[in-house]
């Protein structure tokens, strides 16, 4: 499924996940809740995209995982940013801003 997504969408999801982990470690379910809350219910991440993205980000060394206990005393896998991940977040964010302002500029011309 993710192979059909454009690189643009995939990169955007990565950016959202890295941002969601900025303040601390969160588990998978928590990440989807955070993204929903931070976007004021606009962005709802499908689990079908979330978990492959988490595994990919971990493979690339930007996040790391460890098992822990959630608020409800459930066993859950928590993710957090690595130092490389923090750098990546900054870089992807500036890429996104450059890209989106370019698109806005195009859309504004007639």
């Amino acid at each position, binding site marked *: 499924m993710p192979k059909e997504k454009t690189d643009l969408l995939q990169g955007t999801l990565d950016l959202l996940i890295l941002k969601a982990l900025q303040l601390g470690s969160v*588990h998978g379910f928590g990440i989807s809740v955070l993204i929903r809350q931070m976007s004021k219910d606009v962005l709802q991440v499908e689990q*079908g995209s979330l978990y492959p993205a988490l*595994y990919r980000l971990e493979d690339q*060394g930007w996040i790391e995982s460890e098992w822990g206990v959630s608020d409800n005393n*459930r066993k859950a896998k928590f993710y957090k940013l690595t130092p490389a991940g923090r750098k990546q977040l900054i870089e992807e964010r500036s890429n996104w801003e450059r890209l989106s302002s370019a698109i806005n500029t195009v859309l504004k011309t007639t």
Partner: protein
Amino acid sequence: MNWLHQLRLRFRALSQKEKLDAQMDDEMRSHIEMQTQENMEAGMKPEEARYAALRQFGRVEAIKETCREQRGVSWIENLGQDIRYGARQLRKNPGFTAVAVLTLALGIGANTALFSIVNALLVDPFPYRNQTQLVQLRQQRPKAGGTVETGHSG
């Protein structure tokens, strides 16, 4: 050193496949449980909450398969599966296997023998250095009316 990190992950993916799969199961299951919990807190009945959570999660097996692909070792696993399948098929058809092995043995043996001969005769015939500089010496004795050969040829 990203490649080193990835190499370590790939190695772990191969050597601890079952453990990683079990962890993936646990992770997805706990997600569904948390979603069920959230649904119940929103007012749904337990069965309905769980059903809604499962439906929202989507096709769990397909997602797991996609996640497995992210480990980056599926080509190795597929290769291993194909090799094992081939070995099983060979075991099941001993006659065919015997013919194939004999043919290969004959081919390799004949080839090796022929090459050894060609090598000895044409490519590397003398156990001397600078073989191309070997010469043959002859002496001529005009008085005796003939030639005497010294030196070697062949």
